[in-house]
Structures are given as C-alpha cells and as structure tokens.
C-alpha cells in the first residue's frame, strides 16, 4: 500500500509547476469569423492563437497595436474583452492512414460520427512547398477512367490539372469518377500482390458546398467502396469563412503526409472559387486593400502556394507524389475572369467543360480546343499514347469543320470523312458518370476506332457498340487486356492479338 502512496506522491512531485510566461491580448471586436485583438505583442504571422472555451484562431494581420485574426469554430460565445493567448505553434491538423475512410472538418475534427481519430502525427496547414532539388518530373499516370481525359488530356502523378467550367457541367463528377477509379485500381493492385504497385490515396476537399451535396458525394463513394482510400475534408457553405479558407490547406497537409511517406495521393479542391470568395470576405473585414473584383492583392499567392505543394518527389526524398485537381467555377463560360486566369496560369493544364456540349448530351462536356495537359503526356501509358496520339487533333479539326460545314451543303470527300470520323469519336467518348474504364479497355476501344472498326456502325449505335466491345474484350479478350495491362505498351504481337479479338467481336456485332 505504501508503494502506491509513494507512486502518487512522486507523480505530484513531478508535476510541472514552473511559472509559465504567456503573451495575452483582448478582443476589441469580433464579427463574421474575424477578431481584432489588442496586445499579443509576441504573436507571429500565421500563429495559432487560443480564444476562451478552446476556440482557436490564426493571426493574419499584424498591425501596430492590434492583431487581426480569423476564428475557426463557433464565435457566438466570444465577446469583446475576452482574453486571447498566443500558443507559439502553427495551426496543425491530424495526418496519417487513420484518416482514410473518415470525414473531417477544416480543423481535422471528425464529423462522421465514427468516433475520435487516433492520429499520431500532426502537420502544419501552412507549409513551404518542396523546392526544385527534391522534385522530379511527372512520369507516372493517374488513370481517371474517363476515356476522353486519359487519351487526350492525360494526368500524371504530381501534376496540377485544373477542372474548370460553369455550374452543372460535370466538374465534380470528373473528380469523383477519378477517385472511384483509383479505388478500383488500388483493389486490383493490392489483390495482385505486385510489390511495385503504388496505391493512390484520395483526398476530397469540399469548400462552400451544400451539405446535401457533400452527403451525396460521401454516399456515392461509399457505394463504390472507395471511401477506404479516401479522406473527405468538408467546409460547407454554412461553415464560417475562416473554415472555408483554411480547408484546402488542411487537405493539402493531409496529402503531404502521404507524399512525405513515399506514397502517392490525389487531392481534389472543390472548389477554389468559393475559397477565394471566403478569403475575399475575410480580407475585406480585415480592411486589407481590395483589388480587382474586390479580391485582395495576395489572392494569387493564396492559390499558388497551395497548388505548389502538389509535387512528385525524387527517390532521395521518398519518391512520393501529390496530384492536385483544383476545380474552378466560371460565370457564363468566362475563363478570363480574375480567379480562373490566376489558377489557369498556376496549374499544369486545364480540363474545360462547356455548358453547350453538356446540353447537347456530350458528357463529359470537355471542350477539346481549350483543354490541355502540359506535362501529362510524358506520364501517359505507351499503349494509350500510341493509339490516341492523333485523336485530339482529329477532334479539334472536327469541331472547326463542323462549325464551318453548317454554311455549305457540298463538301469534298475528305472533309466528309473528317466530319464522319469526328462525330464517331465524339460518340465514342460519351461516358456516363461513375462508370470508369480501365486503361486496357480504353486502349482496346480507341484502337478499334482508329482502325476503322466503328466506321460502318450507325452513329446512334456507337455507344451500344462500345459497351458490346468492352464486354467482348473483358470476356473473350481478357488475355489481350492482361497483356496490355502487364506490358503497358502495344507491341506488334499484342496489336495482332487485339486485331483478332476485335475482328471476332465485329463478326458477332449486328446493327439494329
């Protein structure tokens, strides 16, 4: 018994009782998630500060005599005169594998009702992006499963590819399809036992969205069994602007952990226009000078420092990668607005979605002429590159000719052939949501198109023919698909076997 008493006495003796120096301030005013604080002479830029009741904030404006801070969380309990303390720490969020399958808020707190997150590590939300030396060029693909993107606008691991378009043009669908396709590839790769297989984990950051939309996204990912490889960071429209501003940075910190551990991750920022609007609100309340469209002068830096954190590291630094798919919503297709031009110039390419194409039933509604991937082609699988090399050009020429052909009735045979081929490619690239194709199936279908196997099929039956060919390839042609998957290139032998399989399919195919 005496030993128990001794143990407790020792514990009490060892208690930290030293006097602690603290730097404090008092709230002068608080409104719309922003507080003006008197004092805090020792506070550092971006330092986490502590409000009463465990509420935290971040110092953003260091003025003579006062500090401007954003407050994360419920500000209704805070009032003028409340004491605020510096913490000496940067704002950090939990990171690690324990977050996979979870839905968290902008601060990393779980909001899915699945209990607390047992994180062992925390990363600061603001971090300097990797420099030039630790990086290497993008050379591994991110298979989106969307045939038109994988063949014409390929994305590589470590790339930043912007998805841009008006409201309701399928921007989020492309991102969700990509996440679902990664889960499918991860499942297959892990099941294959291939030691060189590198799973791609996903982080979906929802900024300023309706809660119902976020719930629908979660449900979609759960139904596709993709949540086990995914983290969702949610700062919905009802959240305060500070949370909407910081959520993409929190997601980036979570993604950086995977990259630092030598793993690959994909992060979707849905969407950065709403984050910019939240940042504009904060900046205006902080009385920062307003610039174009009332955005503050550093809104470019807001997005550039976030997107620069996506990188592919070299082997000496673990070889991990963080691929970013930022989303920007345009107004009436205006890509020359302030935020769209900023993000276009920061990223390594963009997928531009058009309302007209969407309304014509061309989905994904990708505008080929305006979409580009600046670094992804070097990451494209050799097989896909071989079969899809000319498609982008053919489709761009088709769009131009189609507009021109509206004015003339007599067309020369060459133009007619180009129009015919173009309209078939358009039909072939139509793809319903949540139905990603594997790379080898994409190769098979595009190869069949390029080798004229779809030329005698009526336009309205191309989609049916494509699905029929997919079934045939996955059934009788599975050995060919396996070879493409394994070698990742289209050798003469594989091409011959593919031709044989597609010819077999063509013999069974009948037009309605």
């Amino acid at each position, binding site marked *: 018994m005496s030993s128990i008493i001794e143990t407790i006495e020792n514990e009490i003796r060892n208690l930290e009782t030293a006097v602690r120096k603290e730097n404090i301030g008092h709230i002068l005013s608080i409104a719309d998630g922003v507080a003006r604080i008197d*004092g805090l002479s020792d506070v550092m830029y971006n330092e986490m500060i502590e409000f009463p009741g465990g509420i935290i904030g971040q110092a953003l404006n260091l003025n003579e005599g006062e500090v401007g801070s954003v407050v994360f969380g419920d500000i209704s309990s805070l009032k003028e005169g409340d004491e605020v303390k510096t913490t000496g720490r940067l704002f950090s969020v939990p990171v690690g594998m324990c977050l996979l399958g979870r839905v968290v808020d902008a601060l990393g707190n779980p909001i899915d009702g699945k209990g607390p997150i047992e994180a062992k590590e925390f990363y600061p939300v603001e971090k300097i992006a990797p420099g030039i030396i630790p990086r290497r060029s993008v050379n591994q693909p991110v298979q989106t499963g969307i045939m038109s993107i994988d063949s014409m606008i390929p994305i590589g691991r470590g790339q930043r590819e912007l998805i841009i378009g008006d409201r309701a043009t399928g921007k989020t669908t492309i991102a969700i399809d990509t996440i679902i396709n990664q889960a499918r590839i991860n499942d297959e790769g892990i099941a294959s036992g291939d030691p060189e297989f590198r799973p791609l984990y996903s982080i979906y950051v929802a900024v300023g969205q309706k809660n119902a939309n976020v719930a629908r996204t979660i449900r979609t990912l759960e139904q596709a069994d993709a949540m086990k490889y995914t983290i969702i960071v949610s700062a919905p429209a009802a959240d305060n602007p500070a949370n909407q501003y910081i959520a993409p940075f929190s997601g980036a910190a979570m993604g950086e952990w995977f990259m630092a551990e030598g793993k690959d991750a994909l992060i979707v920022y849905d969407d950065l226009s709403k984050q910019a609007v939240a940042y504009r609100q904060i900046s205006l309340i902080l009385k920062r000078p307003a610039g174009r469209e009332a955005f503050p002068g550093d809104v470019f830096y807001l997005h550039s420092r976030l997107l620069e954190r996506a990188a592919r590291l070299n082997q000496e630094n673990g070889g991990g990668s963080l691929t970013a798919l930022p989303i920007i919503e345009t107004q009436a297709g205006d890509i020359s607005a302030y935020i769209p031009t900023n993000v276009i110039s920061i990223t390594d390419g963009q997928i531009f979605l058009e309302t007209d194409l969407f309304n014509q039933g061309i989905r994904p509604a990708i505008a080929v002429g305006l979409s580009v991937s600046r670094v992804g082609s070097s990451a494209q699988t050799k097989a896909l590159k071989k079969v899809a090399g000319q498609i982008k050009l053919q489709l761009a020429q088709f769009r131009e000719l189609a507009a021109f052909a509206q004015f003339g009735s007599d067309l020369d045979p060459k133009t007619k052939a180009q129009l015919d081929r173009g309209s078939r490619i358009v039909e072939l690239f139509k793809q319903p949501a949540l139905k990603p194709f594997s790379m080898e199936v994409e190769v098979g279908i595009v190869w069949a198109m390029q080798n004229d196997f779809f030329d005698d099929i009526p336009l309205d039956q191309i989609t049916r023919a494509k699905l029929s060919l997919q079934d045939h390839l996955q059934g009788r042609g599975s050995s060919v698909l396996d070879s493409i998957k394994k070698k990742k290139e289209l050798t003469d032998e594989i091409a011959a076997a593919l031709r044989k399989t597609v010819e077999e399919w063509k013999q069974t195919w009948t037009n309605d």
Partner: protein
Amino acid sequence: MLKIKDRRQRMLVKRMVELSLKDGIPDPERVEAVLAAVRNQTSRSHRIILKSYLGAIRSLIRESTLEVVYAGELDPQAIDSFLKSMETRMNRNLILDSREDSSLIAGSRVTIGDHVWDASLRGLVARLIN
C-alpha cells in the same frame, strides 16, 4: 489606438506623448501641462488628436504597470523587492499595482503589458484542464 491619417497630426500626438513622460512613465503633472497647452490651440481635429493621445497614454501605462495579483497574504517588502528585480530585468521604471484576488485560490499572477507570468493555482488547474 485611434489611427490618424494626417502626418502632421500624427507627429503632434507623438510629441505630446514624449512630453508627457518622466523617466519613461506618463507623469500626471506633465500630462496636465500638455493638455493645457493644446487646449488653447483647438482645431477641427482636436477631438481626434485627444482620442489618439488617450490611446497612446493608456497603452504606455499598461506597458509600464507591474500588476501583481495574489491570493492570501503577501509581504509588502517582498512585493517591493520583486518590483526592483523586474525593473532591472526590463531595464525601465515600472508602476506597481498590487491587489488581492481570492479567485486565484493560491499563488500569484504578474502582468506587464501583454506578458503574463501565472503562478496561481487557478492558472495551473486551467492548464491541466486544457
């Protein structure tokens, strides 16, 4: 502190503050003299200047005040010796403001400007809870 945009007015407030100090601490007599001097030269921005002056003096007093709050009894000599040691440490004169506050339960809490040294039981409990 109220911000003045006009440079001349800002310089005036700065000069008023400088004239109000004695050994680095705002002195009541000097403040009275400064106020009397500006009273005779009122201008349209007189109120703004006085408000800015008030803010600056208030901030200076806060930064020059050694506030010692304690629970229980504290020897006055100990407080004086503490004031001297703090003045040596801060290398400037300080105004002492000591008072008892039973809500600290035990120990003391020392404040200079926005720096706080908390050695109270209430502070310790608060830290343990956090």
